[in-house]
């Protein structure tokens, strides 16, 4: 069992976990992920490591409660335990001094972009972070990002903070100001990574994306996470998770991500019903004792 040292919501439905994992903390590098199971009948889900501390022996992950497993995970509190945790998995991010590095992130992708931005800065790059979200409340890790990069720019779909628009609009602004990125890293929801890759392909800026595929074992045994990159099938868990965004078949990956949409909805519904029952039972109990 793996102890949760600290759990706290950092945005609506988005929770940050500090988990005791000395071996993983010692080994992990930017871009790598873990696989966890919440309970003994749980599924295995991959989550990118946002931060770690080798001396104190912990890792940090940021989770948005979208489906059954992530929603269940987000009910866990400080002091609770995870059923299983394994890692670090995947190849570390290739970092070099490109010159100007722009890290574009959406949603919880910002937490995953953090270690890459920090490593990029340490390697001597000028690093600009572009953070995008639907609205002000969903912008996460802005302060932490500001600590490690040269400049942070924000965009929201509704204009509640930062530039009204998408991260691609902010990139265009940068270019219009005469800033020419030498390298782009895009991490976030698939449509966002696809849009960025489309934009940068036209203007010829190398772009790396971190693919979030469905996985089971995460060590190259099952092939659930396959994607097409440059016309070839790759296994995201051992060949990635980072790839040349200009070569990725986003349409195929998008439909593969929806492979279990129906089952996931069913599972999520079951979970919510169970939670509701539990809450009602607790309410009753409280009433009875008062």
């Amino acid at each position, binding site marked *: 069992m793996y102890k949760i040292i600290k759990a706290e919501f950092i945005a609506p439905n988005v929770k940050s976990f500090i988990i005791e994992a000395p071996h993983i903390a010692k080994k992990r590098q930017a871009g790598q992920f873990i696989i966890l199971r919440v309970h003994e*009948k749980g599924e295995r889900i991959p989550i990118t490591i946002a931060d770690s501390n080798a001396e104190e022996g912990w890792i940090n992950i940021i989770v948005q409660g979208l489906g059954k497993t992530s929603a269940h995970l987000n009910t866990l509190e400080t002091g609770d335990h995870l059923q299983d945790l394994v890692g670090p998995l995947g190849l570390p991010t290739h970092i070099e001094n490109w010159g100007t590095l722009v890290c574009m992130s959406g949603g919880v992708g910002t937490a995953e972009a953090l270690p890459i931005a920090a490593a990029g800065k340490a390697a001597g790059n000028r690093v600009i972070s572009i953070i995008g979200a639907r609205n002000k409340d969903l912008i996460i890790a802005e302060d932490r990002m500001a600590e490690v990069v040269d400049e942070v720019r924000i965009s929201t779909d509704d204009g509640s903070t930062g530039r009204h628009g998408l991260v691609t609009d902010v990139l265009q602004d940068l270019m219009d100001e005469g800033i020419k990125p030498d390298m782009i890293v895009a991490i976030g929801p698939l449509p966002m990574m696809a849009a960025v890759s489309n934009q940068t392909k036209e203007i010829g800026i190398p772009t790396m994306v971190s693919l979030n595929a469905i996985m*089971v074992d995460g060590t190259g*045994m099952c092939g659930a996470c396959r994607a097409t990159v440059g016309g070839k099938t790759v*296994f995201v868990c*051992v060949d990635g998770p980072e790839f040349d965004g200009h070569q990725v078949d986003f349409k*195929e990956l998008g*439909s593969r991500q929806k492979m279990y949409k129906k089952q996931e909805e069913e599972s999520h519904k079951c979970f919510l019903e169970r939670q509701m029952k539990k809450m009602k039972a607790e309410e009753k109990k409280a009433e009875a004792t008062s």
Partner: protein
Amino acid sequence: MIRERPQSFNEVPMKERLTIPRQEMPEQDAVERSGNFLEVNLGLTPEQAVIEAQRCIECKKPTCMDGCPVSIKIPDFIQLICNQDFIGAADKIKEDNSLPAICGRVCPQETQCEEVCVMGKRFEPVAIGRLERFVADYAMNHGGSDAKTIEKPEPTGQKVAIVGSGPAGLAVASDLIKEGHEVTVFEALHEFGGVLVYGIPEFRLPKVILKEEVASLEAMGVKFVKNFIVGRTMTIQELMAEEGFDAVFLGLGAGLPRFMNIPGENLNGVYSANEFLTRSNLMRGYDFPEWDTPLYRAKHAIVVGGGNTAMDAVRTAKRLGAEEASIVYRRSEEEMPARNEEIHHAKEEGVEFMNLVNPIEFISDDQGSVVAAKCLRMELGEPDDSGRRRPVPMEGSEFIMDVDMVVIAVGNGSNPLIAQTTPEIDTNKWGNIVADDDGRTSMEGVFAGGDIVSGGATVILAMGQGRKSAIAINEYLRTKVGSTS
């Protein structure tokens, strides 16, 4: 070497033994079982086991042992069954094979011990596999003996790391713990057993059997560590230099599933056999949504391939409710690598066999899900490198069939993790670890066996390689002590 003959407890006169019919193992009804995941074979009764054991004619030169990759003392344990000493018989097997309940179920006895049984030349061979299974189960259900009777060896103070808890790793662990070494097994997944837990279905090998076998190794002193990926969580070098392991055995198993490289293979509903079986077996997808991992329940499933894995996959698809579950195989039934018993069971359960057919494309709907397979009919030409007749496409034979799930079961490549993280260990062009007959790799103190070396074989062959490596590791550790003291 002259073998001492076991004491005979068989009172049936020699001539009569030839007339006893081979005892059939009771099975779950075919229609009923094709709708559940309970074990198909039910095992011999004690009465049947004694009768079957009495069929053994106690050959002066028992060839059966030569047919066994781990040289179980078959005549000896059969005599103990004649004497109704079932636990004694189980212990006799355990001298050479630490996992009898598993091997009694999944070994291809018909091409090993039973194929060379002298009785089989004129009559039917003694059902050695069924007897092995019977005594192993009997011992398990009656408290066994294992750790209780086996004396704890003098500790050597030497540490061995075993990477992978599949059949090769478990065999090595069992042999080395008996030598007094400190043995730790590292497993990447959250359950122990490797292919025995993620690959072989419940209806062929119930998980409780595997858990018992692992527990008995634990009772003997083997340490088991799960959720630990050697190469990532810690490298081999770190295990040896920092954690003080004197030797390492790599039983990583097969790796990356092979695909056919045809259009449409990444459509939704197209699985590798590894993924489909892992979702069902390890993750219990057949109990979704009680268990969280989802799994397709197809109406028309096809499984491409003709090995045991293909049979496991197609029989799983049938149990998940497929109206039609078919094997699609490019050669004929004669060339199928699967065990006869598996083919026979699949047929009984209503699996269809489309032999001499090969898919060339999978077709999707507008949602990216597979809805049809385009196939060619094949005929057999001249023999190829494998000695089997090469399948050749028949001209103008293209046809399309409706399918809503495809499982590709055409074998595995190798796992790239160790090659990625341990360049000192030589691999061949297929990515398999290069090891000599005793499992020695190019890195000192590091041994390897099972599918990561052979590329894909059976449980018992992996165990056999593991046992050979265990002898070599023991030898290595002895010389290591000698050179440092």
